[in-house]
């Protein structure tokens, strides 16, 4: 099995990933200050910056959804039950015995089954939970006499608590994610790949890879 340098993360994908990383860090940092966990920027500025960053995040999400739909990249995230056990076995046992990754990383299948499941959960549950509760939080209006009773929300309580839950889940994700970056072929190979776009992959399926790459290129162009 020979290794070949493959262009696995395209420009927009990397831009999206890193912007998302910056914004989520920033949102978490300002958000937990608003939550009352610590004081750093000052409450007023924390709220101001949090709101602006939230809008930027939403714009980014809209672009990302568009990109995923038009390129067909969304299929990467469809969860599969296949190999889940093998992947779990790898993380629990194989990794300590220097066993090979149970699933092959290819341009068309960049994510292992556990990643698929996690990212699917993020995209379908956690991000929508955070964004929806965040928008409700932002646009929450205290009930007034002149409002429509049926759509009045009488308290911020549940909106705020759900938003906190979303934030905590994201922190848990980030901790795990940051660690699992180091479980690639080498400790830094995953990080390098997300920075440069290129990663050394097993080339036994290389002819297919190249075809796929072309396919993607034509779709994008």
């Amino acid at each position, binding site marked *: 099995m020979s290794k070949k340098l493959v262009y696995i993360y395209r420009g927009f994908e990397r831009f999206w990933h890193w912007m998302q990383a*910056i914004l989520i860090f920033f949102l978490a940092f300002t958000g937990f200050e*608003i939550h009352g966990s610590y004081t750093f920027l000052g409450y007023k500025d924390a709220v101001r910056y949090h709101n602006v960053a939230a809008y930027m995040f939403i714009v980014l999400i809209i672009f990302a959804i568009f990109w995923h739909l038009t390129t067909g990249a969304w299929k990467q995230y469809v969860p599969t039950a296949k190999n889940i056990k093998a992947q779990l076995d790898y993380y629990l046992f194989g990794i300590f015995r220097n066993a090979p990754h149970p699933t092959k990383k290819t341009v068309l299948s960049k994510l292992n089954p556990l990643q698929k499941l996690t990212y699917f959960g993020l995209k379908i549950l956690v991000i929508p939970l955070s964004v929806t509760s965040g928008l409700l939080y932002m646009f929450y209006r205290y009930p007034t006499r002149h409002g429509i009773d049926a759509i009045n929300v009488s308290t911020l309580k549940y909106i705020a608590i759900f938003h906190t839950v979303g934030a905590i889940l994201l922190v848990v994700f980030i901790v795990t994610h940051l660690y699992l970056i180091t479980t690639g072929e080498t400790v830094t190979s995953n990080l390098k790949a997300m920075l440069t776009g290129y990663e050394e992959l097993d080339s036994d399926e290389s002819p297919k890879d190249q075809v796929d790459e072309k396919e993607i290129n034509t779709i994008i162009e």
Partner: protein
Amino acid sequence: MKKIVLLLAFFSLVVIVAIGYLSDRNYEPTIVQQLKQKYSKKYPKDVDHSRFPILQQKFTSPQQVTEACESCHNLTAHQIMNSNHWNWERAEFIKGKGIVYLGKANAINNFCIGTKGNELSCAKCHIGYGMDSTRKIFADSTNIDCLVCHDNTETYAKAGEKGGAPAPGLDYNKIAQSVGKPKRTNCGVCHFYGGGGNNVKHGDLEMSMFEPTKEVDVHMGTDALNLQCVDCHTTKQHMISGKLYSLSSMNLSRVTCEQCHTETPHESDILNEHTYKVACQTCHIPVYSKVNSTKMYWDWSTAGRLKNGEPYEIDDSLGNHTYLSIKGSFIWARNVKPDYIWFNGTASHYLEGDIISDTTKPLVLNPLHGSYNDYESKIIPVKIHVAKQPFDPVNKILIQPKLYSPEKGEGAFWQDFNWTTASEVGMKDAGLPFSGKVSFITTEMYWPINHMVSSKEQSVQCIECHTRKNSRLAKLKDFYMPGRDYSPFVDIAGNWLIILTLLGVLTHGLLRIFSSKKSKKV
């Protein structure tokens, strides 16, 4: 690789700068500039009263001055005689009690308790001449004291304990010839001294407001716009807008900040949104009694101690009375952070003769209504004045004692220092039953804080309320406030989840390092 890391750093910078740029909106709203222009305009007087011959005559009594006023202002007296400044009462609707006539004439407060039987002393602050227990002066319009409100020489003064008569030796010609719109001095001479001394009652109205700096009040500051009371308390036909809930109960004729500043005066939407539920005063009056102390606690039960048979007083280092034989012990405070309550503009009142249902709890004399769920309610700042005052434990009603009388032996507490006789005489004057027993009960009064507005730079900052510890709104628990409130379950569970995740990846990482070393050795 290096290039991309640099690029990422550059992107982070761009994002953060963009966030800062998009969220920076600090410029003065034009409405404030317009208001400043409007209120700094000076208007010349329409009338020079010194040219009227009738005001140049020799006056021998204040009633003659009033007659002279009324000879031109011949349709004005009835306006005064229908006002609560004259009648010391007005029609108020109180939920559960219906329409009652309420005012200084009959209300019970937790300072000097009530005016009944004490008119000679209390009526120093009545806009009339010569009130006594019979209260007959109300029928005669020449008893109207025009000068106390309209004197612009600042020389007019009332005599003490003469039922509202002027001090001797006044130059009525000079005063009458210089009458004009009321100034801060005219209003302040009564409203700053309510309760028997400077700043006893309100906390936000006191003698530093005669000539305040803008530090004390951003509107009235002589170094700012120098606004007068009547600039906000607009008046039509002697009906002055604004009233205080020590005596009022209806959401009517209130003076609001919004009447000049609109309901959405802030540039920031988040702040404007606060105005749904937070009154302007809540943020813009961070402290009251900025210059002189205000009375926070009045204990009548210690009154009556004598030294060598004589009444005495004890003062603190600032000159505030902490003990007076005639009134009891006091606690004063300065630069006070207000208490905060929900308020919808309506209040109830303890009226004379009301039975106290629970004498073990503090009796609130003027409960202010409101709650988070009430659409009309906003959070307002209040001074809570606490007192211990006499009540009849058998009849379970507050006692209106006779306090003032010019002579000993008439039962007045300030002369004879005997609660039983003072209560007996006082309750008889008030037409209320008295069992012969005097006990003391804790009472509270809520005084909304509306003056001593600070500049926007000094207003209450977000973090003073939106914080877990020592929030200014810590006592208002009927709503969720970001920064102050959280779900303990979610926070604890979340913290554990994060800790366990960290431990998990740490263990996993250590095991990997350990196993890779082992395999290398092999």
